[in-house]
């Protein structure tokens, strides 16, 4: 076994050495040390790589954090403008987040304003700017040029809704990711989790995090960064393998909470979107690829625990998503007509079901469940969630050079734009970043101390030993069960207060005792989960506090103790800031 001469200890001195010689594009990859013994295949004692993972510095014109529909729209825009773009994807490229799912995303691509946006919750300036800029408002053309086949057709084979702004059904996100990742001017670093932003003198110079397969610390340097990392719904409850969401474990608000800890104001965290998905068997809970929906179009199939319809047959309001969710909350919780898991009962019978769910009928039969002849429990699942840094009319955050493609105010009380606005805002974010680069000044001297501190923070989480330590999945479930209580379609002060008490307990008691089973940096899932848990707790607590403070009903949930909308006191956005470890909120008026 050979060990190398080179010191493998990360040091500030190494960092500063590179910064002062103005190295650009430098990549320093440390050496693998240690040798493995145990020829009988058993795990040898104490031979993890010498003294921890290495760091790499990667340079680019424009950094995009995220690789979904929104991020790819930004990447397309920036590439068209001639920029060398680097995309950083937390998961395996094309398989990450909700855009990494091969599902028939029947959310629309729309030119209309986000639903219910008569009120001031929307930042109308950025909305107008994004719409005015949009180089291809005819989304059919955009989508077809980005590889979509649009195979969902009328029976005669013609495309439904041709050349209108709205498209419904048959959008498969991987086409977009295939297109964007094909460009020569786009580089992708995937399976790399960004854990912090590189902020120097109030300016964002890039981002940093962990390359998951190796555990290496990667620093991405860029004069402009676009964040497009999706909404965090993974906080919302827990079945056996999934939260109460079609969302994914990739989206744990890592970058948004990093911005928060660095001083950014976070808005819209109280808002979320819900629909209803089957939750039985538990292992298939809330899976769009495995269950059936109880959405607006299936309202006639939605019953309470006693078999009474949840929506009246002639209730035209079911198509209003806000009403739909609030009515669910009223029925399930306030009227106590919900099932044990806080859900409803789907009785599909012979009703026509959209294909993307109908294909699941045969899958469910493999489990002995026949949705045509038996009822099945379904729950409101959270598929979108707000909570992002505040932005100006050009999608720039409070950090110069940092743009956020779904920043607070972009969709307001709707709580996240899903497909409809990701493409619009992603395109605009790419454009704004490119425009900014034209006049961006040199950063001057770089303060690397935040990078050193972040590296040390991550390694501490990985190597921590604690008497009576708690594994990350246990801590996580505590967060999720508290958030499930607080952030559903029905909320009140009692439920949210109890959740906040639990969040405070988790922060004080659980997090410090959180340990991982193995300290090897090689694709260490528990290390990843442990890092994410800090962010999940922050966003869950922030969302609950914001919702508690907002004493009214607005957005897709019913506040049982304040069932009316109150434009006198709450016609505003709530922005959360970290003031010495305390979450403080202020009311902010958005541009009209």
């Amino acid at each position, binding site marked *: 076994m050979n060990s190398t001469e080179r010191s493998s200890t990360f040091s500030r001195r190494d960092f500063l050495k590179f910064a002062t010689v103005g190295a650009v594009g430098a990549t320093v990859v440390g050496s693998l040390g*240690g040798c*493995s*013994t*145990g*020829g009988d*295949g058993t*795990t*040898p004692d104490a*031979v*993890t*790589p010498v003294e921890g993972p290495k760091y790499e510095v990667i340079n680019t014109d424009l950094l995009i954090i995220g690789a979904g529909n929104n991020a790819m729209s930004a990447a397309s825009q920036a590439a068209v403008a001639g920029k060398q773009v680097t995309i950083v994807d937390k*998961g*395996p*490229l*094309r*398989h990450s987040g909700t855009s*990494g*799912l*091969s*599902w*028939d995303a029947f959310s629309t691509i729309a030119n209309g304003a986000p639903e219910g946006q008569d009120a001031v919750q929307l930042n109308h300036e950025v909305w107008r700017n994004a719409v005015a800029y949009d180089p291809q408002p005819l989304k*059919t*053309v955009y989508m*077809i040029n980005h*590889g979509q*086949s649009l*195979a*969902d*057709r009328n*029976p005669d*084979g*013609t*495309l439904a809704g041709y*050349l209108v702004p709205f498209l419904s059904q*048959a959008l498969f996100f*991987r086409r977009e990711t*295939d297109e964007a*990742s*094909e460009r020569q001017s786009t580089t992708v670093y995937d399976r790399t989790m960004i854990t912090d932003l590189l902020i120097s003198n109030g300016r964002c110079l890039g981002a940093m995090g962990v390359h998951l397969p190796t555990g290496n610390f990667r620093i991405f340097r860029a004069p402009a960064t676009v964040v497009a990392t999706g909404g965090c719904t993974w906080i919302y409850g827990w079945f056996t*393998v*999934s939260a109460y969401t*079609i969302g*994914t474990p990739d989206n744990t608000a890592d970058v948004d909470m990093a911005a928060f800890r660095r001083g950014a104001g976070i808005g819209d965290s109280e808002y979320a979107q819900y629909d209803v998905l089957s939750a039985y*068997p*538990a*292992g*298939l*809970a809330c*899976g769009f*690829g495995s269950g059936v929906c109880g959405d607006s179009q299936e309202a006639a199939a939605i019953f309470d625990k006693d078999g009474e319809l949840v929506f009246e047959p002639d209730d035209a309001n079911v198509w209003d998503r806000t009403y739909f969710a609030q009515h669910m909350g009223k029925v399930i919780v306030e009227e106590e007509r919900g099932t044990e898991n806080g859900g409803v009962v789907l009785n599909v019978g012979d009703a026509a079901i959209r294909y993307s769910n109908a294909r699941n009928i*045969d*899958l469910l039969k493999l489990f002995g*469940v026949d949705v045509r002849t038996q009822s099945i429990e379904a729950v409101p699942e959270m598929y979108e969630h707000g909570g992002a840094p505040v932005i100006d009319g050009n999608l720039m955050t409070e950090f110069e050079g940092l743009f956020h493609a779904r920043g607070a105010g972009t969709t307001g009380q709707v709580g996240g734009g899903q497909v409809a606005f990701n493409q619009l805002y992603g395109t605009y974010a790419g454009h704004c970043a490119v425009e900014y680069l034209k006049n961006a000044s040199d950063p001057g001297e770089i303060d690397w101390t935040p990078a050193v501190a972040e590296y040390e923070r991550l390694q501490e989480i990985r190597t921590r030993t604690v008497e009576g330590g708690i594994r990350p*999945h246990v801590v996580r479930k505590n967060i999720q069960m508290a958030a499930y209580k607080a952030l559903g379609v029905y909320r009140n002060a009692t439920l949210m207060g109890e959740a906040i008490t639990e969040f405070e307990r988790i922060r004080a008691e659980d997090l410090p005792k959180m340990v991982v*089973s193995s300290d*090897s*940096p*090689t*694709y260490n*899932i528990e290390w990843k989960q442990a890092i994410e848990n800090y962010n999940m707790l922050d966003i869950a607590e922030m969302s609950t506090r914001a919702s508690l403070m907002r004493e009214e009903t607005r957005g897709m949930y019913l506040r049982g103790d304040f069932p009316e909308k109150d434009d006198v006191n709450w016609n505003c956005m709530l922005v959360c800031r970290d003031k010495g470890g305390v979450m403080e909120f202020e009311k902010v008026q958005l541009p009209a």
Partner: protein
Amino acid sequence: MKIDVLKYDPAVDAKPYHVTGEVAFREKMTALEALVEFNNGVEAVNLDYSCACRLCGRCAVMLNGTPTLICVTPIEDKDYTYEPLKGFPVVRDLIVDKASFDDKLSGIFNRVRIEPFNEQTVVPASYDPAVRDPLYHMEFCCRCGVCNAGCPAMASFPDEYIGPAGMLAIAYRHLDPLDQGDRVMEAVNNGLYRCIMCGKCDELCQQQDIAHVEAWQMLRDAAVARGIKPSYA
């Protein structure tokens, strides 16, 4: 149930090793649930799963020797062994590296066209249902690699046959009326006739609506019509 998991940290271990433990069976349990129970109750296992509903493709492993998307696989009250998906380098435990496979697939999936569409040239193409239905079903391929891992032809002709996942991408764009590439030639070039039409891909793929062998037959018929059937076929 006795659950056996093959663990391996290449930075530490000389070779992979088995860990076993008991997991309580539950009615209508999935193979992913059993693995998560093992992780929670017996020993940490590194698996990178995401959607838990056969859309992301990340949970594909060898389950009792069969390539399987474990999130949608019902299990019985018996013993199970979990090993990493065959045919890919193992990163750690049940996590494999599919980046190379994925990039190549992506290249095939990108549409071939002389030039982009505009409002005038985008036509509401009337898809013949014979085209539309298989095309739409192929959209649900989540690129999990289960088909490749179980394909006997790939194992016999690793230099010549791209495997079912790649061939499906070719079939998809062949069906797409807006594609202008020579997908039939691409299919033959990538080993269409090395496939032995055994149907293992149809059997293993957990998107039940994708008709693989029908697609290979369609491509063969097109190759014959073009006169580009290889001499070894």
